[in-house]
């Protein structure tokens, strides 16, 4: 391995640099590292591709996602309708393109919130220990004992299917998992010399957690966030497939697969493209997450 050692952000001499600069520097570093591994690079490109597709959907998609009769109903792929049309004559290509927004934004927001709460609770329980740790950890353990899909179905059936509902469900499902990961990472970092040193310097708890512990748990957190994001995409698509996703006529990929599956042999294009889009996006995110994991593991071994 001829790789240069990545900059480690946890060394005490860098503490004086503003946190956001360090974060940016390390983010840039991660991306460079990712780009160096072919598979991770492919993953990164796929994710970036989908994000661009989501941003530029109005330009890329020739039709609105809910416009019916864009061509003959249930017609196979053609020049006018690249991915064919569905039973309402809606353009499948446009729907897949527009659908990338929801499938990225909903799990993205949900994962971000879950990471925020998970990191906070994880560092708190890991740092303080004691009864706070006991109460929160046991509560989350009991939540984790219920299969995720069952819990999601029950919750969505109760609060009603909507985008906000899905975000709430994902946050509730993933916060405990992230909390657990961050908590164990915090336990490892807490006993390190520089944390001890900061404590002896008389730094405030807030300072210690954000400046000393957070950078230490960041690798674990980033990998976990990427993995959770890919699971969240799958969960969102699954809920859409089960009819508990975003409401029609939204171009929810999972719902599109579900609507098309009864006519699969007649109009395979209706089902194949959204299904492939889900698969490609999830594979992309997973490759990226895997790349992150490898980078951090390598770093961890060197340290």
């Amino acid at each position: 391995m001829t790789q240069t050692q990545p900059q480690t952000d946890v060394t005490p001499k860098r503490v004086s640099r503003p946190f956001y600069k360090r974060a940016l520097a390390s983010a840039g570093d991660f991306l460079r590292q990712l780009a160096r591994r072919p598979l991770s690079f492919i993953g990164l490109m796929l994710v970036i591709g989908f994000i661009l597709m989501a941003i530029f959907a109005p330009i890329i998609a020739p039709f609105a996602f809910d416009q019916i009769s864009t061509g003959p109903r249930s017609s196979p792929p053609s020049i006018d309708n690249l991915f064919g049309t569905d039973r309402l004559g809606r353009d499948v290509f446009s729907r897949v393109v527009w659908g990338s927004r929801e499938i990225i934004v909903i799990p993205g927001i949900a994962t971000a919130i879950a990471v925020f709460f998970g990191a906070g609770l994880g560092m708190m329980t890991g740092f303080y220990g004691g009864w706070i740790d006991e109460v929160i950890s046991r509560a989350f353990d009991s939540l984790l004992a219920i299969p995720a899909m069952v819990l999601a179905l029950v919750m969505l059936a109760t609060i009603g299917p909507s985008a906000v509902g899905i975000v709430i469900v994902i946050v509730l499902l993933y916060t405990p998992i992230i909390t657990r990961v961050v908590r164990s990472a915090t336990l490892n970092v807490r006993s390190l010399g520089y944390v001890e040193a900061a404590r002896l310097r008389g730094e405030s708890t807030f300072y210690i957690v954000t400046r000393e512990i957070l950078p230490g748990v960041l690798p674990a957190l980033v990998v976990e966030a990427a993995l959770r994001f890919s699971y969240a995409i799958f969960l969102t698509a699954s809920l859409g497939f089960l009819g508990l996703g975003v409401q029609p006529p939204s171009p929810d990929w999972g719902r599109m697969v579900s609507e098309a599956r009864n006519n699969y042999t007649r109009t395979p294009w209706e089902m194949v493209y959204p299904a492939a889009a889900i698969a490609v996006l999830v594979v992309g995110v997973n490759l990226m997450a895997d790349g992150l994991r490898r980078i951090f593991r390598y770093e961890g071994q060197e340290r």
Partner: protein
Amino acid sequence: MFNNIAHLFGRSGVARLKMTSNVVLVALLALVLSVSVYAQDENVLVIGTEAPVNLDPAIGSNDQEALFNRTVYDFLVDVTVDSDIAPALAESWEISDDGLTYTFTLREGVTFHDGSSFGPEDVVFTFDRLKELESSVLSRLGEFTVEAGEGNTVVFTLTQPNADFLYAVGARFTAILSSDDMAFDTGVDANGTGAFSVSEYVPGERTTFAANEAYWGGAPSLAGVEHVYIEDKNAQVDALLSGDVDFIFKLSLDQIARIEGEDGFTVLEVATNQHPVIRLHANEGAIGEDVRVRQAFKLATNREEINDILYGGRAVIGNNDPIGPLYGQFYNDMLEKPAYDPEAACALIQEATGEERLTSTLRLPDAFGGDYALMAAALQQQWAEGCIDVDIEVFPEGVYYSDGTWLDTELGITGWGSRPIAQAILVEAYVPGAAYNESNWEDEEVGALVAEAGVTTDPEARTQLYHQISEIFAERGPIIVPFFAPVLGAVSNDVQGLEMNPFPGLTDVRNVSLGQ
């Protein structure tokens, strides 16, 4: 076929021979036997269906159970494919003027498969047994007593008139059993008067029936019938296409599309009364309080387009009432089909509300494999043309019907299963105070007409009443019935004279024959 062979081996003891030295002999014997079994199959109608579970006619209610019972048993009267009443074990009947006494004259010289003769005691036994077992058909029969009358007659005495009594008597639960079968068990013991008798019943696998040469309606032209139990619909299609079965039913459009591409098969299509109801709350302060708004929704709905999208045009476009073409003359086919006119809808909306556009939320169950959600997406676009903007909320079917959403929502879609008689659905959902009055519509005139239809036994007078009800629905009803769904089946072209019943399990095979 292999099962037959294995069975024969077991019986003849061949299997007990030492395998090592007799493999060749066994194989040869198998070949001979299989050829002979195959030869017998030539004039046998083979039907592919899911396996029945409860073969007691008083209880079993699904298609495959009905199919089994329809083959073995007879009924006092037959309800035809066109919803008419035809004589069967009862040659004729008389209804007293007050509509409370039904006297059936039974057919002479009918025998059960075990050789015993059929008489009034068997009818009394059968109907008393329905009461004993609390069969679900009792709700349709109403309260009654049954006893043997003078000569070869049976007399039913009702506590109140029931214009649909004959339909209940001909329903699938009322197969006439032999009074000798006090310990009636299912399957193998089935002892009816029907055109076919059970030769062998292998639960979960198949039933073979042999023609009843002594059948009162004349010996059937088929040598026998065989039901082959295949749980997967696509496998049923495979079996049909490969020639293993001759008739399958309850197929999806996708499955039909596979069959249509092949030579030698005919797609069957029968209108049922299964339909979605798109309805508005009609009570005071609700979205549909103003009749003009109700009419606007009707005008803004393009039924042809929905039929094309969901059924490739195979469904029957509905009027705006639940009385479908399945109910024969009760269906008002004189009524002008509802037009699609979004501009007129806009005008009515503006006139009724004083606003440019009406906004609401359309709630519906996720039913029929996403078909309802698809219909909602189409409605949303159609209604937008008619100045009606709706958001769509799709609920899991179980949730929608169990937590009251389907009754509470101002604007919703409800799936109504096919009821065998028009009266049932009207009483359940559309008269004032009805149990499932989902549209909160309290129309006294409709209530009075429905009540009158319930006790009017004269078919002509009854038809008039139902037509009148349909007209009221068209004029001011708060519901839209975009279509009546078809039931689809497929049959090999070798089969002649098979007419699929709207309830496919009740398809009559007595007059079916095989051969080009």
